[in-house]
């Protein structure tokens, strides 16, 4: 027979856990919404930049002349690995790090890691990767300015030919239930192909090259900022789902334990009654 008091204590404990997980679920839900909104708010800016770059890159004289557009033989690769700072978000961190690990193994060339987020940093350290920089504790609402140093590192290294290709790895937000680790090429910038014909001939001031040179770094900064926001939305939705599952399991466990507790209590009462009636019978 289970110890009644132990069962009761266990029920209390599970109830407390359920309270915490429920609160975490709600916090994650609201943070997820905020990250999504911020991602959407920047959409017009990035769409515009993408379009202008496509226009400029298509110009015969300057197309593909800029260092950030130039492809060159790949000798060294860098990956900007964006992960959460914290755990308790289901398999998200493990999936992200596994994706990075298998990517590094697939490459014939050495890979450097720029870790954004503690979980990815820890993984890079544990696996002995060549880590150039780490950015941790950016918080749940990083400003555009907070993400600029990340872009500077990769842009500088790329321009100085320290690295020849840059990928960005983060959790793509597909839906609240599904987040997919993706590995996307960041540099060289691949200009989107926009159907000609609709294009207008612009006057560029001070010159097309200068404008393109100014826009490209902005574009890279923007891509990284968006990836960071999307990663946050993914992290929060993963956490939300994980916490909902935890709350559900806790409720189920509470049900089972309560049943066990009631059974034990009933049994104890029955036993006591039997003792009394037994005692009475013995006296008669």
């Amino acid at each position, binding site marked *: 027979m289970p110890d009644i008091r132990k069962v009761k204590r266990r029920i209390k404990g599970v109830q407390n856990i359920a309270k915490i997980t429920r609160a975490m679920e709600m916090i994650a839900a609201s943070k997820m919404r905020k990250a999504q909104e911020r991602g959407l708010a920047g959409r017009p800016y990035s769409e515009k930049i993408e379009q202008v770059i496509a226009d400029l890159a298509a110009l015969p004289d300057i197309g593909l002349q800029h260092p950030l557009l130039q492809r060159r033989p790949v000798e060294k690769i860098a990956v900007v690995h964006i992960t959460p700072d914290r755990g308790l978000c289901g398999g998200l961190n493990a999936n992200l790090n596994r994706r990075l690990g298998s990517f590094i193994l697939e490459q014939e060339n050495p890979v450097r890691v720029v870790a954004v987020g503690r979980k990815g940093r820890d993984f890079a350290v544990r696996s002995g990767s060549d880590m150039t920089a780490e950015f941790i504790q950016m918080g749940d609402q990083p400003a555009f300015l907070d993400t600029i140093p990340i872009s500077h590192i990769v842009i500088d290294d790329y321009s100085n030919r320290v690295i020849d290709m840059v990928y960005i790895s983060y959790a793509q937000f597909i839906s609240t239930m599904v987040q997919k680790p993706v590995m996307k090429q960041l540099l060289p910038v691949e200009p989107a192909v926009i159907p000609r014909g609709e294009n207008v001939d612009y006057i560029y*001031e001070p010159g097309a090259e200068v404008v393109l040179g100014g826009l490209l770094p902005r574009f890279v900064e923007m891509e990284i900022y968006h990836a960071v926001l999307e990663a946050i939305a993914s992290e929060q939705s993963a956490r939300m789902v994980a916490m909902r599952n935890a709350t559900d399991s806790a409720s189920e466990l509470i049900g089972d334990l309560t049943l066990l507790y009631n059974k034990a209590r009933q049994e104890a009462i029955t036993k006591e009654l039997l003792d009394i009636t037994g005692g009475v019978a013995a006296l008669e």
Partner: protein
Amino acid sequence: MSSLKLDIVTAERVVYSEDVDVVIAPGVEGQLGILPHHAPLMTILQAGELVVRRGAEEDTLAISGGFLEVRPDRVIVLADSAERAGEIDVDRAEAAKKRAEQRLMGKPAEIDTAMVEAALRRAMARLTVAEKIKRRRKL
């Protein structure tokens, strides 16, 4: 009468989106005034004030660099940062201005003069815009 659709967007939000009559922007090669039916233009902006006229009304925004795209019926500003006059943190801009000035006066050899000058221009732009609005309110 035709008008221009002006959108000012930054990486974080859409700051301004209205139909306007005139846009005066701080281009790198000097101030530009844009009226409807302007020739398509793409230019870099420097830190400064961007003035918008709409009928008798006039709005002023402080922007700290960016890009400007003009089409016959649209103007799009991709700003590094943009603030309406009311949103400007005057104390912060004041502090930034002092800091930049001190650095410029100190040891110009050791610092990135261009960067400090840019910071100074940004702070000045914010202050001019904030000042202008304050004056207008008093009148």
